[in-house]
């Protein structure tokens, strides 16, 4: 049987952990979007000095585990005099990681916009940059929202890895409370519920954005 007393008593502590998880998620998400957009545009660029570093970034991130990336940043960088707090190590690792996946998602969306759109814009005298900003990206947005939502949900869940570098977010809060209460089922269940609330909230938010991009479609 579930120990409801334990649940009601400790739930507020877990909510506190969830708030840290939310913070780290939102900051990583925003930075990851910026990184992803920048990397996508660089990969699509014909300039090799932009193209190849961006390709390398996406390749190295996607071909190594997030946990190892996190350890390199948190445990490895201090060797070179770069010591980041657990929070910012987590943000950096997660942003770089989700950024690489976002880059591929965004690049795919940009390429999926029909080439006639680019031609029409350029024929009107619009520059490449103006065409990208005003015509291509808004249309790509519509295509990339669903896969981007996927990346967001994965990001939120991946924040649990940050518990391994002593950041007391949702998962580590649960673990610590288990140490004193010996109630692993209740604690992890509450953590799971709170993760589900965060990821569902993100999905619902994105659906609102998607609704604004119907442009006359029913």
């Amino acid at each position, binding site marked *: 049987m579930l120990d409801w007393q334990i649940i009601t008593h400790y739930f507020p502590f877990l909510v506190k952990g969830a708030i840290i998880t939310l913070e780290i998620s939102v900051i990583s998400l925003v930075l990851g979007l910026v990184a992803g957009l920048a990397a996508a545009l660089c990969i699509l660029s014909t300039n090799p000095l932009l193209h190849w570093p961006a390709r390398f970034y996406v390749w190295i991130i996607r071909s190594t585990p997030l946990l190892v990336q996190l350890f390199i940043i948190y445990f490895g960088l201090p060797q070179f005099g770069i010591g980041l707090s657990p929070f910012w190590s987590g943000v950096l690792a997660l942003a770089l990681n989700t950024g690489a996946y976002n880059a591929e998602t965004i690049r795919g969306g940009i390429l999926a916009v029909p080439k006639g759109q680019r031609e029409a814009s350029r024929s009107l005298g619009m520059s490449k940059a103006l065409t990208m900003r*005003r015509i291509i990206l808004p249309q790509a947005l519509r295509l990339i929202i669903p896969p981007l939502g996927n990346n967001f949900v994965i990001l939120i869940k991946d924040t649990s890895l940050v518990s391994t570098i002593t950041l007391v977010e949702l998962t580590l809060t649960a673990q610590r409370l288990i140490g004193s209460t010996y109630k692993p089922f209740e604690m992890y269940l509450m953590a799971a519920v709170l993760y589900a609330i965060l990821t569902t909230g993100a999905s619902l938010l994105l659906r609102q954005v998607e609704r604004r991009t119907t*442009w006359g479609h029913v």
Partner: protein
Amino acid sequence: MIRLHNLRKSFGNNEVLKGINLEVDPSEVLVLIGPSGSGKSTLLRCINNLESPTGGEVTVDGEWVNRTDLKPRAFQKHINRVRTHMGMVFQHFNLFPHKTVLENILEAPTQVLHRNQEEITAEALELLDKVGLAEKKDSYPVQLSGGQQQRVAIARALAMRPSVMLFDEVTSALDPELVGEVLLVMESLAAEGMTMIVVTHEMGFAERVANRVVFMSEGQIVEEGVPKEIFSNPREERTKQFLADVLK
């Protein structure tokens, strides 16, 4: 006004334009006809550099379009400016689906020419009225028929006040009953004295509206002349064959 001198274009080893020489006068309506793959569309797209010629010169309003003396960045600036004087209408309309009809028309005049919003809005509404779509200004492209979309595309190009309009098979993607409304708009544009280069398979339109018809085949101009001459008394064998094929 438009001058093509020894214009060449290759895609890889495939030479699509094999040295085209052509001049178009102000207010002239030039219609390009020919079998598919003859290079008509490529020729049109070379004029505003949507395709960059492999050789030769394109001159519009006395200005060298495909300048080879500029570094890439300077060329981009140059070509963006030159393109503002040339309107183009495409086979598949290419309206911006995320913008309303009015926004489609306002986009380039406000973003590229930085023209006064109020002034250009009044002008855009006038243009919409002219193509018979004033009441559709707040619709999105997806809510319009193909013919309506194409008329908006014409209005969008005209809003830049171009000195020449390029039409690339603009009725080819339309249902037959919608072709007429688009041709009508083009006809009235021609009557107003717009310089137009029209790639089309509408021989009736060519006969009625063109000042000159150019027949192309395999990347070369085979024959050109006034419509009557070309349609009723073609000199070249390839022209005769083509006309027999399309008019039967």
